[in-house]
Structure formats: C-alpha cells, structure tokens
C-alpha cells in the first residue's frame, strides 16, 4: 500500500527533531530580540557612564588592597578603562593607585583592586574613572 506524502513525512521527522528545532527558534529569537533592542536603542554610540564603588580593604603581604567595582550604567562599552584611587587624609593626598580594566560592558560591571603601601585605616579612599578606549 503506497503511503501518502504527508504520512511519510511525519514518520521521517522525529519528535526530537521538533524539540531541537524549537529550542533553536527559542534561543535565536531570544538573542535577536536582545541584539535588536540594542540596535534600535543605538546604544554603542552612547558614552559609557562609569562609577567606582570601593569595597573591602584587606592587607596583602606588605601592601593594602582596596577592592573596587566599576559599574557602567550606560549602553556604551568602555575598553582599557583607567581607574584612579586616592588615599586621602582630610585635604591631603596620601597615596595614589592606578588600575586598568580590560573592559566594562554596556550595563555591566567589572572588578579590580587598588594597591596601597600605606595603612589606609582611618583614611578615605576617593576613586574615579580617568579615561577609556572605544572598543
């Protein structure tokens, strides 16, 4: 008995094939919608907006390390970001540390640390981004 083309096809296309294809559609649509939204927002042309949050201070060998987090709140990515951390005693700068971050993605965060030789106990740390490269 000859099979109809439709019946023949449903035999060849396994359920797993539909599952795999469905997963593909789901992921593709997900990726395209995120990237598409970015395209419409024309994010990459925005300058990055970076704030530096200084976190915990730990003693590491002869040095003192202040961990920091660079938070980018804009749609533009900063590459080769230079960050400066100053140890301040009232109005007097005690010590300055520089750090370079490979990149902070749009709406992303990156972590690093300032290394000081003087004990920062009782002193204030003032941190700010210095400059970046457009990726």
């Amino acid at each position, binding site marked *: 008995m000859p099979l109809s083309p439709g019946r023949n096809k449903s035999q*060849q296309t*396994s359920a797993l094939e539909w599952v795999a294809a469905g997963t*593909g*559609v789901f992921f593709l649509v997900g990726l395209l919608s995120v990237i598409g939204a970015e*395209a419409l927002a024309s994010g990459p042309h925005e300058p990055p907006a970076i704030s530096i949050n200084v976190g915990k201070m730990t003693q590491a060998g002869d040095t003192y390390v202040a961990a920091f987090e660079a938070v980018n709140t804009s749609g533009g990515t900063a590459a080769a970001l230079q960050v400066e951390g100053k140890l301040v005693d009232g109005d007097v700068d005690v010590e300055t540390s520089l750090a370079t971050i490979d990149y902070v993605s749009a709406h992303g965060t990156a972590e690093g640390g300032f290394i000081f030789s003087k004990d920062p106990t009782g002193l204030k740390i003032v941190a700010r981004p210095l400059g970046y490269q457009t990726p």
Partner: protein
Amino acid sequence: MKSLAITDRAYAYGLARAFGGAIIFGLPLLMTMEMWMLGLSIHPLRLTLFILLNFVMLVILSRFGGFEPTSTVGEDVLDAFGAYAVGIVTAALTLAVFGLLGFHTARSEFAGMVAVQAIPTSFGAMLARKQFADGESEKEDEQMERSAGYSGQLFLMLAGAMFLAFNVAPTEEIILIGFKMNAWHELALIAASLLVLHALVYAVGLTGQEVAPEGHRTARLFLGFTCPGYTIAMLASFYILWTFGRVDGAPLEAVLSNMVVLGFPASVGAAIARLVV
C-alpha cells in the same frame, strides 16, 4: 510507533555528532580573546544581519548534506534551527565554563558574546555528519547530487571562504599583516592565493569529471572556478571585515590590503569546501 522510536534515536545520534562538530569548529574562536570583545563592539544591526545570513547558509548546507539526512526543504529549515540550538548551547556552556559568562553578566554582553560564537559553532554542528561520517544512505547520495550543479559549487566555495575568513578575521594580526606588507608583498599574496585555489580546485576535482584535453580542462577550471572562487573569497573577506567594523573610517588602501590578507585563507576555504561539506 516503532519506526518513530528509531528515527528519534537516529536523530539523537545526529545531535550528538552536531555537538562534536560545534566544538571542533568552534573551539579556536571560543578561545580567542578578540572574539569575546567582538560581542561587545560589533554593530548590533550588522550582527543581526550576519545571524540571519548564517541561518540561510545553514539551510542550504543542510540541503547539501547536514548533520542528518533530509528530503524536504522544510526539514532543512528544522535542521538549521536544530544546528543553531546546538551552536548556541555549545557556545554559552563553553564560555560559562571558561568563566567568561555568568549570572552577573549584563544581558547585552551575554547576547553579543553568544551570538558571535554561535556562528562558527552552528556551522560546525551542521557539518558534523561529514566529519564523523558513518552511514551511506540513498538520501546522502541525493544530497551530494544537489550540490553538483555550478551554482551549488559556487555556494560551497562561498560557505568555505566565509568560514575560514571568519576564523582568522577577529584577530589583530590581520590588520598588522596588512601594515607590514608592501605592494609587492600584496601582489605576491594575490598570486599565491590564486595558485593555491587553482591547485586545490584541480586536485579536489570540483567539477563533474568531464573528459577534455588537459590544457582545455585547466583553462576552463581557471576561468570557471578559480577566478570566480577568488572573487567570492574577496567578497566574503570584505563582508566579514565590514561586519567586524574594520572597514569604517579606514582608507581604501588599508581596506584592500586587509582584503588581500584575509583573501588568502578565504581562498583556501573556498577551495577545500568540497572536502569539508
């Protein structure tokens, strides 16, 4: 019901092979630093265009012999989605294991990084059956026949050129080599590309084996495959440079020298496409 279980199992084998192919073709780029950055810096519209173009290429590749035998175009579309699923999962998992992606990763960074990597991995997933070839069904012969025509051959050249060019284009070295070479070097590289392309086309035997006098055959191969092949390689190189934003603001000479540099791997890719696909 029994036959359905068998096709499920056959498809599961196909999927497993697809993961293997995705890893083999994807690893060099998954472990390339410039590719991680590219996900952030690439123009989103150009990336979207590339994702869609890659999908069309996957459908045609499936037509010519994808990771499981197909008979209708509808099945090829399903397989292209399946290959993308494998490609995206492979890319995301590998990058996560490398510690490059995590739950803290920004959404756009995640999407960009995975989407860029999913292009070579999905390509590898689609070509998996050829790499881990096993069965020889009549469907496979049918698929081979589909690609035997002239336009099919040219498409395979395009796919091969795109793939190899994509593999080297993200690195800084392409630009650096372009700076290092003078006009004579560039002319020599063009000649070398043509020579390699022609030699491989000749050796691999892209055409249907027609009986013709040797000289005639060489000339025909050169005009019919080597010249269009090199044009395809150059166009693929330009397209990939444009997608990666390497053309913007660059002077014409710099773009051309980058195209010549990238044209060399693209030519090799175009020539050996028949072996891989």
